[in-house]
């Protein structure tokens, strides 16, 4: 069983280093899934790799041997298309065999193109139709309060996804019901599938909607960990961490290029990427 880590505001360099390695492993895993020209949502999976590493390998209380443990923390990937990052983390934690990663999207496999709660151990919600995950997270957080459970709910939304009206319906609901057991995270990579986001500045919006908001460099593990601790300490309102990120982070030719939102890599691109992900580090 992995227990939630140290709640001191500063985290040790060795822990940060360990998580940077995990984030790098997630990025490599994403790339490996896309080997042999398999298409996938590369850009947004790479931009969330650091926060996914921080959540799965440090922050969340989980028991992979008992995926439905009542007191586990919940993670809802509302921007479901970035699920490749989550699959690698889940495989690393042995929710399922690593071999399954080779079968992503194969007919009949447990790893679908978007998160599937029924097929995949460790997936808490079937998402992918954008806008819906945050509301599900609100329902779980409200249910936890009704039932007296102490676990925390984490929801990761996209900045492009934040155009969806339903996100703001959930924002109103969570603030009204003071869901302080909910930490939402925005992957603000500033690119949608086709071009730059049109959602505008997010921090003032969430503040106006009644949320506690902080902003971090979403590729700096230390900042992410501090923000997650801060969010846990917020009372009486839900917390939002805006992560400034780079779409395609870690693969030079994919960084900040919308075309790599969903793509297929040539053999040459694959080899360059693999090389870059051997040497790249975290650390913003």
């Amino acid at each position, binding site marked *: 069983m992995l227990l939630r880590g140290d709640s001191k505001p500063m985290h040790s360099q060795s822990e940060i280093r360990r998580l940077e390695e995990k984030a790098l492993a997630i990025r490599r895993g994403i790339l490996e899934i896309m080997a042999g020209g398999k298409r996938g949502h590369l850009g947004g999976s790479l931009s969330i790799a650091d926060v996914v590493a921080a959540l799965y390998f440090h922050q969340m209380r989980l028991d992979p041997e008992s995926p439905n443990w009542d007191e586990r923390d919940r993670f809802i990937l509302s921007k479901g298309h970035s699920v490749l990052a989550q699959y690698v983390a889940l495989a690393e934690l042995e929710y399922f065999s690593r071999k399954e990663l080779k079968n992503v999207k194969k007919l009949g496999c447990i790893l679908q193109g978007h998160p599937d709660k029924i097929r995949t151990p460790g997936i808490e*919600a079937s998402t992918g139709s954008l806008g819906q995950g945050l509301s599900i997270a609100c329902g*779980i957080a409200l249910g936890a309060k009704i039932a007296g459970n102490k676990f925390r709910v984490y929801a990761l939304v996209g900045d492009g996804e934040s155009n969806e009206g339903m996100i703001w319906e959930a924002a109103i609901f969570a603030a009204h019901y003071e869901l302080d057991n909910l930490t939402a995270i925005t992957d603000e990579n500033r690119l949608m599938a086709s071009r730059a986001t049109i959602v505008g500045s997010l921090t003032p919006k969430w503040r106006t909607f009644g949320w506690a908001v902080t902003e971090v460099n979403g590729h700096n593990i230390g900042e992410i960990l501090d923000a997650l601790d801060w969010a846990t300490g917020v009372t009486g309102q839900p917390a939002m961490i805006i992560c400034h990120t780079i779409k395609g982070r870690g693969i030079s030719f994919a960084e900040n290029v919308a075309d790599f939102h969903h793509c297929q890599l040539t053999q040459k691109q694959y080899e360059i990427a693999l090389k870059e992900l051997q040497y790249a580090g975290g650390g913003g």
Partner: protein
Amino acid sequence: MEKLEDMRDAYGETLAQIGEDPKVVVLDADLSHSNKTDIFAKKFPERFFEAGIAEANMIGVAAGLSTMDLIPFAHTFSVFATGRVYDQIRISVCYQNVNVKIVGTSAGLSDFHDGATHQSIDDIALMRALPNMTVVVPCDGIETRRATKAVYRHAGPAYLRINRMPTPLVWKSLEDCRFELGRALSLKEGADIGIVASGHPVALAVKAAEKMAKEGISAEVLDLHTVKPIDRESIMKIAEKTGALVTVEEHNVMGGVGSAVSEVVGETVPVPVEHVGIRDRFGESALDYNELLAAHGITVEAINAAIRRALERKRR
């Protein structure tokens, strides 16, 4: 004088009864007075949640609550409970196959004052196209009580369609209405023609059958309260026995009860089927419910005319 009851009253009282189960939680999108969820809210305020006029989020929250082993009932008018939140029901409820109950009130044309924006003519079609969804359309207050309890006991997504107006009681008592999800109920035996009806027009179907009896035509009447999963066996039986069917619904004839029945007989016992319902057009405002139903072809006379057409086709 026939006895009348507003299905909403029957629903609200029953919801408050099943609320004795602490797992039951209720969400409403600012229509709790009309939906009669007020009764539950007064009795169990800690398990009633005002979702505001934000139906999409209400459905998502319900899906989340269900993962905490709670039984959420989400309420608004049928139009908003289905079409407005179709994708939320499709993915967060049905694809996840979670135990969420969606209750649509003011169904069909029964919100006659408010006009087309508030009248649900396509909700049955939408809900029955969704895998894992159960679709229940009770015909009167008594059946609403039975249906509400059955939907509560059923594990999985369900859509319950409730009418707005005081409507005639088809069933004499709770004992008389031997309700079971997925099993159509026979209201009257007959040999010449089968009438398969859902919802409030079941009462019209019974009257139509009585009228035909005076002309020497014996009609069997089936109350198809569960549109999905559909009772194939009972429909095949009535088709075999009578050789011609009439379907009756307060809904577009496209995709609703008539379509569902035709799908069954088309694959099993192909017999002539005539559809009584709304003929592919939107509703409209009216000052009288029955006047509006008549304008959209949902009357005893329309059912009798359909019976004659079906009998004519059967003879050919």
